[in-house]
């Protein structure tokens, strides 16, 4: 028995001995690259940017890598590397530019779009990219009789209501595809740039079947190599990419669930870029000489929605009073830190047609009290304030925002009880209108104002299960956004959306809180990484400089 004990002890000691003797230096990717480059000249010539392994640390693992099937951002991080679309967002902006389609033309009635595809492009499995691939990739999501329709559910396609927009997809010839629409839809082109419209290799889908999400094959800058679930996905450079091949040899998406642990891993050089840092560490990161933080106003908005079907939120004066009662600066300082800007409109400032001459409700508790007493609540009322339990891009800590609001509302006599459920229940109850006031938010998909104003505030969106959780049904506002939805002329649409925002300010169905600034801390040697407003993480242009 004693022998057993000693054996276990020896086991422990030899392990630790082995650990420190082992040849494992935890040096970051850079040094490996340095040995390669040692003999080359100093200034980085064009080809000198090549090589190196980039490790991107994120909060969760992808659910699947079939672009049409998933909705979570983590899955799209993976799909972005492997798939291209026929049109894409210009990196760092929401403008549309050609990709697999060199050009396209629209019919006069705006119901037909014909795309002219790029020739000589190959999928990672060597098969040719052509019109059939486009029809296959999108058709499998449209036609219920499509042999691969049941590989869905095609959640995003449904989310963007594409089945009611697209009537038919026709391969005119090997390199021309025509889309026929049911009705005019201004944001249609932008929708085709979204992740769900990624072009998959039909041969690979036929080969892997339901296992395709684990073996993605596309035309993108990186090829899929391997996936250790809940741990890491490895991609490698696609040498015969139809554009200049990417600089990096390999990209690894690493899962580190805890934000603090991600920051510690970055400090130790175990990873090169981290996603969703905790706002608290931002100051420290900016101060760190080895780390740089790239920031960009996020295409998102976090808001507190008043359930207008419930007393007393039906009364506009009460909603306006509550807007006066909140000091947004305290919320930004307490929760968002330097990763957030105050919000006054339902649209984020970076969105075109953002109406900047609207004046926000300033923090004025006295005014709030006056309005409340006018509305018949001289000494306030008590109600519930719902806070989402999970961290979202538009609101890193729902519960803390609720705590701050609770204290501020109390000053004007409005007593609130903070209520929270797990994420699934929270969404279900809010879109069934079981709340009084509820924190929620939205991240833009296609960079089009319609994706905010119609999806979140239209009368149509107020049917249960509603996305318009204020249940605000304003005829004037509704007519404006529907008209804007159907005109193609951008200037006309901007005019309409600006008018709609004025009505929104007056009626105040929400208390807009903030637009979170997306921050991406990384090591100094990571060059040319650009954040994308629609939340993509593209490593095509990235290279490592040491």
């Amino acid at each position, binding site marked *: 028995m004693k022998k057993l004990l000693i054996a276990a002890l020896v086991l422990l000691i030899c392990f630790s001995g082995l650990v420190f003797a082992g040849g494992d230096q935890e040096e970051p990717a850079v040094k490996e690259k340095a040995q390669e480059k040692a003999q080359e000249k100093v200034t980085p010539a064009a080809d000198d940017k090549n090589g190196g392994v980039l490790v991107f640390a994120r909060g969760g693992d992808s659910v699947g890598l079939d672009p049409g099937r998933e909705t979570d951002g983590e899955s799209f991080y993976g799909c972005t590397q492997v798939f291209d679309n026929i049109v894409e967002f210009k990196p760092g902006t929401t403008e549309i530019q050609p990709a697999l389609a060199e050009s396209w033309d629209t019919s006069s009635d705006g119901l037909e779009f014909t795309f002219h595809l790029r020739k000589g492009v190959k999928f990672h499995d060597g098969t040719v990219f052509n019109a059939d691939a486009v029809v296959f990739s999108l058709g499998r999501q449209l036609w219920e009789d499509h042999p691969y329709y049941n590989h869905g559910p095609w959640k995003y396609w449904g989310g963007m209501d594409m089945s009611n927009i697209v009537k038919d997809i026709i391969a005119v010839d090997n390199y021309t595809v025509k889309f026929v629409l049911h009705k005019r839809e201004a944001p249609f082109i932008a929708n085709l740039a979204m992740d769900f419209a990624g072009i998959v290799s039909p041969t690979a889908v036929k080969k892997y079947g339901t296992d395709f999400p684990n073996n993605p094959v596309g035309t993108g800058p990186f090829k899929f190599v391997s996936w250790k679930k809940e741990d890491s996905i490895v991609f490698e450079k696609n040498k015969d990419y139809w554009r200049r091949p990417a600089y990096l040899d390999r990209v690894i998406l690493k899962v580190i669930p805890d934000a603090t642990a991600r920051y510690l891993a970055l400090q130790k050089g175990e990873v090169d870029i981290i996603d969703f840092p905790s706002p608290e560490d931002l100051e420290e990161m900016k101060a760190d000489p080895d780390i740089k933080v790239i920031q960009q106003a996020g295409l998102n908005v976090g808001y507190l929605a008043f359930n207008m079907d419930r007393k007393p939120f039906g009364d506009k004066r009460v909603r306006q009073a509550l807007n006066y009662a909140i000091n947004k600066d305290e919320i930004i300082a*307490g929760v968002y830190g330097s990763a957030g800007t105050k919000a006054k409109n339902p649209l984020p400032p970076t969105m075109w047609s953002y109406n900047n001459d609207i004046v926000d409700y300033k923090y004025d508790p006295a005014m709030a009290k006056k309005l409340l007493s006018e509305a018949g609540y001289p000494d306030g009322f008590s109600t519930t304030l719902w806070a989402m339990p999970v961290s979202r891009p538009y609101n890193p800590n729902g519960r803390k925002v609720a705590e701050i609001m609770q204290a501020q509302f109390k000053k004007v006599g409005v007593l609130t009880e903070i209520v*929270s459920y797990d994420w699934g229940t929270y969404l279900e109850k809010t879109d069934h209108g079981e709340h009084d006031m509820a924190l929620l938010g939205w991240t833009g998909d296609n960079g089009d104002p319609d994706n905010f104003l119609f999806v979140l505030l239209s009368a149509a969106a107020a049917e249960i299960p509603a996305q318009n959780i204020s249940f605000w049904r304003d005829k004037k506002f509704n007519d404006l956004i529907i008209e804007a939805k159907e005109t193609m002329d951008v200037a006309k649409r901007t005019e309409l959306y600006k008018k709609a925002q004025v009505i929104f300010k007056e009626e105040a169905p929400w208390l807009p809180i903030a637009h979170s600034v997306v921050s991406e801390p990384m090591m100094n040697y990571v060059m040319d990484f650009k954040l994308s407003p629609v939340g993509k993480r593209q490593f095509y242009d990235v290279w490592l400089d040491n």
Partner: protein
Amino acid sequence: MSEQLLDTESIEPIEKEPGRFREALHQLKKNKGAIAGLIIIAIFLFIAVFAPVIAPHDPLSQNIELRKSAPFTEGFLLGSDDLGRDLLSRIIYGGRISMIIGVVSVGIALVFGILIGVISGYYGGWLDKIIMRLIDIMLAFPYVLLTIVIVAMLGPSLTNAMIAIGISQIPRYVRMVRASVLAEKEADYVVAERSLGASNFELMFRSILPNCLAPISVQASLGVGEAILSSAALSFLGLGAQPPTPEWGLMIASSREFITSAWWIVTFPGIATLLAVLGFNLFGDGLRDMLDPKLRD
């Protein structure tokens, strides 16, 4: 010290055996661990009861400008949290909540545990078999997941967390009580009392149960410590106490990200949890040494 050596059967007590209470008190004095534990528990009880009096500030009043101020800055003995609330007051109120959590959940576990344990042990037969299968199922169920599933069913709140922790601790008491009831059931005094016409109820609760109190009281005191830790874990997962309640687990969970920038916000509630649980465990351990004749000095 082994009994054999001293031929204790020969030293019959001449005068009346010293009162059980005095005897227990005397044993307690001998056991350093139990005393230390008792002192810590007493301190926390005192803090819990007189929280409003002791706490320098209202635990919920926020002061965003003074957020994350370091310990010993004016007004904040232990510093302030990320919303500028006084950490010391929140820890004091947190102590009250943790005490309630510990007592309520162990209370639930004890009441049901003893009830089911005695009935299943005393009556036996098919009833016992079913109960044992149920207990096996609950024990096979991973303890943490059991609490999570129960809270998922009832919805996340402090009371539901207490109920969940209570329910998940029931099996251990059932098993322990049943084991000692089975052992005592055959004892002569039980047979004697039954022959004198004592009812099943009297037998179960008046004569058999007191004999199983020793292990139960030890497990109960250890259970309180475990309950506090479980509620902290549940809060960490967002299923226990809801903001702004100053519960230690929630305080640690929601301030995890400050471990680098403001270490005290995480550390002090951690130490408070540690001490409280340590107190109960020490007392529980001391109790076991005291009540187990073999280990007695």
